[in-house]
């Protein structure tokens, strides 16, 4: 399927460049924004171990965001432009990662991590044979670190859901978090821009380029699975697992014969979907938070740990 050669980033067609940029921004923005949310749990998680674990996961996600943003360095972007000086409306992360945590709602953090990390695993698999060597070469490093995240989330999910069937507080909190988060988790698999014939104009100016970017991402071999395929695989993993914990999954997508179909309808999705540039109000607040110091100090570039030695 790899019909395009991305090994020479200086000689990409406009179509190739746009597909690469759209794919990477979504990967990186997801990781970056999730990390920003995770850090809110620092010194607040329920145990010292879970505090360290989530802080470490946040650091992993920041590292992964940087690996992905670095790929855009080939297209002339800098970290400053991509993170601290980008208009918040230009971020393309799934709304799952931007939602605020209700105070003390650890079940939300754990469930969100699970929903995201399963999707992340599938997405990385579909990038292993990317036609962009720079993408393919980063996958193994990220996979090496992601494995722990899912293990951590599942350990906690099983503890919170345990016993008490439907009456324990942990179970109730998980169910409430699932009802709240599930529609937003589905936005992970939303196309990165409206299709060619879409009537509304949100997205990365897709019609200006006259192409369907999401189709290009697969046609050009940047990712070897479609979003629908990833979504179906995701449902086939998370639905049976969550049901095994005694949770009711809002829209399981399960057909009569036990297969999963990824049929997302307008009703199952939240109003804001992230991928098309629409975001919840919480995103603007979060953006203001993480750019606050940068703006306050009048910075013009990200800080380094130490000055460059003479």
């Amino acid at each position, binding site marked *: 399927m790899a019909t395009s050669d991305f090994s020479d980033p200086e000689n990409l067609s406009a179509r190739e460049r746009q597909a690469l940029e759209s794919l990477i921004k979504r990967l990186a923005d997801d990781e970056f924004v999730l990390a920003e949310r995770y850090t809110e749990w620092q010194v607040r998680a329920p145990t010292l171990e879970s505090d360290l674990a989530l802080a470490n996961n946040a650091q992993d996600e920041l590292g992964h965001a940087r690996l992905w943003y670095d790929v855009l360095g080939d297209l002339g972007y800098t970290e400053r432009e991509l993170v601290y000086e980008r208009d918040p409306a230009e971020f393309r992360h799934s709304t799952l990662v931007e939602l605020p945590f209700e105070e003390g709602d650890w079940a939300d953090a754990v469930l969100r991590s699970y929903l995201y990390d399963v999707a992340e695993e599938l997405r990385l698999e579909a990038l292993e044979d990317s036609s962009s060597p720079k993408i393919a*070469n*980063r996958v193994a*490093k990220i996979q*090496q670190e992601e494995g722990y995240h899912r293990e951590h989330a599942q350990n906690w999910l099983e503890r919170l859901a345990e016993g008490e069937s439907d009456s324990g507080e942990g179970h109730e909190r998980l169910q409430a978090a699932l009802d709240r988060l599930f529609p937003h988790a589905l936005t992970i698999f939303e196309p990165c821009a409206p299709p060619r014939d879409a009537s509304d104009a949100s997205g990365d100016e897709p019609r200006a380029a006259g192409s369907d970017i999401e189709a290009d991402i697969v046609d050009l071999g940047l990712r070897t699975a479609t979003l629908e395929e990833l979504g179906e695989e995701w449902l086939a993993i998370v639905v049976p697992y969550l049901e095994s914990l005694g949770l009711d999954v809002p829209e399981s997508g399960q057909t009569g014969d036990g297969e999963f179909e990824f049929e997302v309808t307008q009703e199952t999705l939240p109003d804001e979907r992230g991928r098309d540039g629409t975001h919840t109000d919480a995103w603007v607040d979060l953006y203001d938070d993480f750019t606050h110091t940068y703006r306050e100090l009048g910075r013009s570039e990200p800080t380094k740990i130490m000055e460059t030695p003479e």
Partner: protein
Amino acid sequence: MSSNRPESTETDATPCAYTEYRSADGDVAAELPATGADATGLESDIWEALYEIEDPEMPISIVDLGLIYGVNVAEGVATVDMTLTYSGCPAREMLTEEVEETAAAVEGVDDAELRLVWNPPWTVDLVTEQGKEDLREFGLSI
């Protein structure tokens, strides 16, 4: 310093046989850990200089830690392929700049370029025998 180097026969770690390593991020050394034991001339001098750089957190040479995947010199320009143990490594700038400057400061080298590579990913298997000894002395079980 060369007396501190492990013999090439001690390199018991090999990259995954099932992974096809690609070269767009740089031609990754075929055999890891790379220690420069077989290097000659300027390249050997650069390896010697890099041996002097220690990990910021532990008393171990970054070469023995297995972070340097390759050193090549062409027309006076040194290219160092290097990885980090961890994608979120907070010492990234500090360490990569130090490596680049150290390589560039070697006599006969006009300029140095550092290529950060991530494939194959670093694992503890890439620590040399000398490195393992240093880490044990430091109090780590490895």
